[in-house]
């Protein structure tokens, strides 16, 4: 299967230190929504950072390739890579509190990339920003564009960030736990909004989350990560009928259900973790 984003055998490591991603492969086709699931520390966010070229300084890609629309990022010059990523991709970050610059007005933060990188006129960019805020159902867009981030609520900021991500009509958006920092009622609206925007714009979306419930609502396909390894890659419907891998199955079993609110939370059993660790050690060796 080919996709817009094609990650093949991607390995990321701390130089002279542990490997964080072990030959990860996954595809996201145009218009597809793929969930990327795993416990914290499994390397979910690291994949997004590697694709977008914002890996922390202490971390380096040690193998594999990332392709965007058929172009191998590794074959480009650093400048060419930045250009391609800037033209085609965007990020919806996790924490709306640190994702907007507190010292700058919302409007400039949305229009900056349109004006400075894509060469729009300021007037065009501002009209676009207003239309986008309308589209993400922000009331009184003109006022919000003049506001500073601290004048908006968390949910409102996340809407602004979604608008900003879609501003330049990217082909690929990586959403890094976009609803984790929000409370549950706002979370549902934001999820619906992301899904709606994605469908309307036909964007490929890599949705990083630890919440299988969210995956079932938003995604068509999913990749399960454990300890930097891909342990399951499947369609969402098939996954919820019966995961192939024992760790994925245990993770699914550990997801709390609304249908049985009194049931105690089930952890992933120790035995499954031990067996998975052993299997992955064999795979790596």
């Amino acid at each position, binding site marked *: 299967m080919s996709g817009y984003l094609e990650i093949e055998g991607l390995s990321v490591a701390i130089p002279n230190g542990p490997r964080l991603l072990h030959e990860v492969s996954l595809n996201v086709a145009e218009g597809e929504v793929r969930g990327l699931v795993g416990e914290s520390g499994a390397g979910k966010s690291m994949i997004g950072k590697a694709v977008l070229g*914002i890996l922390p300084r202490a971390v380096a890609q040690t193998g594999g390739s990332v392709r965007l629309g058929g172009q191998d990022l590794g074959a480009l010059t650093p400048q060419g890579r930045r250009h391609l990523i800037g033209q085609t991709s965007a990020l919806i970050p996790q924490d709306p509190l640190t994702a*907007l610059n507190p010292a700058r007005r919302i409007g400039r933060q949305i229009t900056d990339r349109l004006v400075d990188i894509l060469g729009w006129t300021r007037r065009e960019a501002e009209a676009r920003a207003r239309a986008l805020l309308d589209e993400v159902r922000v009331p009184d867009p003109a006022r919000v564009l003049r506001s500073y981030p*601290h004048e908006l*609520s968390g949910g409102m900021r996340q809407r602004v960030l979604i608008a900003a991500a879609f501003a330049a009509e990217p082909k690929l958006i990586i959403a890094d736990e976009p609803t984790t920092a929000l409370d549950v009622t706002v979370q549902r609206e934001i999820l619906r909004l992301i899904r709606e925007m994605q469908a309307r714009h036909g964007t490929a979306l890599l949705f990083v989350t630890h919440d299988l419930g969210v995956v079932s609502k938003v995604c068509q396909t999913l990749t399960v990560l454990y300890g930097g390894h891909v342990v399951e890659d499947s369609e969402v419907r098939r996954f919820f009928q019966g995961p192939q891998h024992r760790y994925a199955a245990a993770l699914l079993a550990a997801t709390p259900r609304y249908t049985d609110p009194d049931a105690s939370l089930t952890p992933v059993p120790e035995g499954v973790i031990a067996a998975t660790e052993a299997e992955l050690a064999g795979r790596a060796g």
Partner: protein
Amino acid sequence: MGETAQPALRADGRAARRHGLGLRLWLSGGWIALLALAALAAPLLAPHDPLAQDLFAGRLPPFWVAGADPLYPLGTDSLGRDVLSRLLYAARIALTVALVAGALTCLIGAALGLVAGFYGGWVDLVISRLIDIWMSFPPVLFAILLIAVLGTGLSSIIIAIVVIDWTRFARVVRAEALTQARMDYVASAQIAGMPRRRVIWAEILPNVLPTIVALLTLEMGIAVIVEAILSFVNLSISTDDPTWGGMIAEGRISIHQAWWVLAFPLVALFLTVLAFSQLGEGLKDRFDPVLR
């Protein structure tokens, strides 16, 4: 939590804070503005030539003490020079040093701090070690040593202050830039393909600005003190020009006979340094977008 901003509540909080800030900003800014005006208009305001000696009118007390001469409102020193005129002319030197040394220190220190904090890696390593080494020199001795090499004079004092104190800016600004560089909005700007220089300028600098402003005014106060210290040990500009530090040094000798020669420059120095630091605090709060 509703999804709307809360203008009513915010407006109240802002009004209350404005009010509290007001007095501090007014007093400190007012004193500095007054001083700046007086310094600029010194030739018009000063009743006497600050260097003119009148040995028959030595050690005259200020106007409210018995035996004062109304021609010398703040009295005279042991050589019969007018204290008020000398204070005014000394303010020119103090404020010049504060302004020029403060601005240069700020520019150099903040630029190095921003670069170190944002780029990290070996750039940060070099600048940070340099700061560490620099700060291990005792500052006043360092200044005296520098003046000894450069020779006395206004520009030497300014150079000495800049050379010694840029580390204060560099260290603090580096730490703030380091925090800013990890923020998601910096990552987003980089994903969009913003050149690094523009990321520093547009995303990081506005957030570090309140701190820089506070440090700048603090530094101006420090520059005034350093200039006074150097004048006090006779290492400032030529002994002809009146300076607060020089006046304090001269007044010290005759403190039992003429306390006013020491007291007036001391009070001027104290009020000016205090005003600079208070102005910085006030402006920092005013500049902060979250508190604003």
